[in-house]
C-alpha cells in the first residue's frame, strides 16, 4: 500500500500538483486518469522519488519515503518496477539484456539462472524468440511488453505503469491491460496505472483517481464513475458520443 498525503509539486512558479491525498491499495490496479499535461506522470515520479515534492509525504507501508536514508531508499526502489511512457529500454542492450539488467545489478544469481528468470518474464509478456533484437527493432507494443518484463524481473511489490497502452492498437492495448491485471492479482502488487484510455478504465475500473487542475478531483470505482454527476469528470470521461452511449447501456444493464 502506498499513501500520498498533502502532496504539492511546482516547477519554478508553475504549480503542477496541489494537496494530493490518495491511497493506492495492494493487490489492486489503481488507475490515475486526467487530461494530458494534468500532472499524472509528475505525481508518479514524486511517488517513486524522481521528483521531490515541496510539501507532503509519500508513505510505503506507512513509512515516509523522503525520511528514509539512502540505503532504505535504495531498498524500496529495488522493490519498485516501473514501465515508462516511452518504455525507456536501454538502446545499447538487447531485449534479454534489458530484462536481465536489474538482475545483474542487484541479483545474487548465477548467469544461467538470470537468463532463465529473464526468459520466464519475457514469456509472461508473450515475447518469444526476440532475445537478441535491439529495442529499435521492435514495434511499440513489443517495447512496452519488454518494458513490463524488465519491470517485473525483480518481483516488485509496487508496479508503476505510465500510459502502458498509449500508441497501441486496441487489441494490443487490451492484452497489456489484462497482463497488468493478471500480474497484480498473482503477485499481490500495489499497481498504479496512469492512463487516458477510457476503454481500460471501463474494463478494469477497480479504483480510479481523477486528477484535474492539479488536484484530486474525484475518486471511485467504475460503477461510481458511471453514476457520478461530477461535471469535469463527465466531460473528461464521456467526451465522445460513443462513451455516452456506453454509459447509458451499462447503467441500464445493471
Amino acid at each position: 500500500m502506498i499513501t500520498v498525503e498533502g502532496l504539492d509539486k511546482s516547477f519554478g512558479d508553475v504549480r503542477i500538483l496541489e494537496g494530493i491525498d490518495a491511497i493506492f491499495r495492494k493487490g489492486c490496479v489503481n488507475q490515475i486518469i486526467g487530461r494530458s499535461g494534468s500532472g499524472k506522470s509528475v505525481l508518479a515520479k514524486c511517488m517513486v522519488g524522481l521528483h521531490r515534492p515541496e510539501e507532503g509525504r509519500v508513505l510505503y507501508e506507512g513509512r515516509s519515503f523522503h525520511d528514509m536514508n539512502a540505503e532504505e531508499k535504495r531498498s524500496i526502489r529495488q522493490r519498485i518496477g516501473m514501465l515508462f511512457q516511452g518504455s525507456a529500454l536501454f538502446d545499447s542492450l538487447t531485449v534479454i539484456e534489458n530484462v536481465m539488467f536489474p538482475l545483474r545489478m542487484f541479483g545474487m544469481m548465477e548467469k544461467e539462472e538470470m537468463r532463465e528468470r529473464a526468459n520466464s518474464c519475457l514469456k509472461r509478456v508473450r515475447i518469444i524468440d526476440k532475445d537478441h533484437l535491439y529495442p529499435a527493432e521492435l514495434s511499440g507494443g513489443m517495447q512496452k511488453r519488454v518494458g513490463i518484463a524488465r519491470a517485473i524481473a525483480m518481483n516488485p511489490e509496487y508496479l508503476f505503469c505510465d500510459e502502458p497502452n498509449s500508441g497501441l492498437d486496441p487489441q494490443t492495448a487490451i492484452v497489456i491491460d489484462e497482463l497488468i491485471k493478471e500480474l497484480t492479482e498473482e503477485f499481490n502488487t500495489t499497481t498504479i496505472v496512469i492512463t487516458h484510455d477510457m476503454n481500460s478504465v471501463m474494463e478494469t475500473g477497480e479504483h480510479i483517481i481523477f486528477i484535474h487542475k492539479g488536484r484530486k478531483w474525484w475518486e471511485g470505482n467504475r460503477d461510481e464513475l458511471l453514476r457520478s454527476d461530477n461535471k469535469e469528470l463527465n466531460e473528461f470521461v464521456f467526451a465522445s458520443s460513443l462513451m455516452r452511449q456506453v454509459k447509458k447501456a451499462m447503467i441500464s444493464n445493471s
Partner: protein
Amino acid sequence: MSVLFHIGRYFLLLRETFGRPERFSLYWSRTVEEMDLLGVKSLGIVALLSAFMGAVITIQTKTNIDSPLIQAWVVGFATRQSTILEFSPTVISLILAGKVGSNIAAEIGSMRVKEQIDALDIMGVNSAGYLILPKIAATMLINPFLIMISMFLSIFGGWLAGVETGVVVSEDFIQGIQAGFKPYHVVYALVKTIVFAFIITTISAYQGYYTKGGTREVGISSTRAVVYSNVVILFANLVLTQALLL
C-alpha cells in the same frame, strides 16, 4: 542560469559519479566497451591528422628558417618539440573534444530525454556513476596511448614529407629529433592529456546528464559539450604549461 550554478552542479554530479559502484564487474566491463568506443574508434582520425600535421610542421619550419646560420638538424628538432609539447597533447585533445565530447553528450542526453536515466534511478542504480565513471576511466586510460601514437605519427609524417619533398636530409632530421631530448617533456604531455581527457568526459557528461526536453535539446547539449570542453582545455593548458614547464 548563472555560471556559479553550473559549476556547483558540476561538482555535485562529480561527487555522485564517484559514489560507490553497485557492482564493480559491471563497471569494468562497461569501461572496456567505452575504451573501444571512445578510444580505439578515434584512432583513424588521430592518425590521419597527426601524419598530415607533422608533414606540414616540417615543411613550414624549413621554409621559415631557411638561413645559412641555422643548422640543418633544427627542422627535425622543431618538429619534435612542437609535436610533443603542444600539437599532440593539446590540438589532438581539442579534436577529441569534438568527436568524443559530442558523442558522450548526445548519448547521455538522449538517455535523459527518453527517460532511460529515470529508469536507472528507479531501479536504485547510481545512474551518474554507472553512465559516467566508465567513460572517465576509459578516456583517461586510453587517451595517453592515442597521444603517443599521434606523437610518433606526426614525427614520422614530418620525416616522410621532409625527405620526400627534399626539404631535409634524412640523417639531419633524425639527428634533430634526437637532439636534447628530455623525457620529462613526454611526461608533461601525458599529464596534460590525462587532465584534458577528464575535462572532455566530465563536461560533456554534465551537458548530457542535465539535458531537458527533447531531441532538439540533445543537439544543443552536444554543441555545448564541445564548446565548453574546448574553452576549459585552452584555459587548463595555460595553467598546466605554467605549472609544469616554468
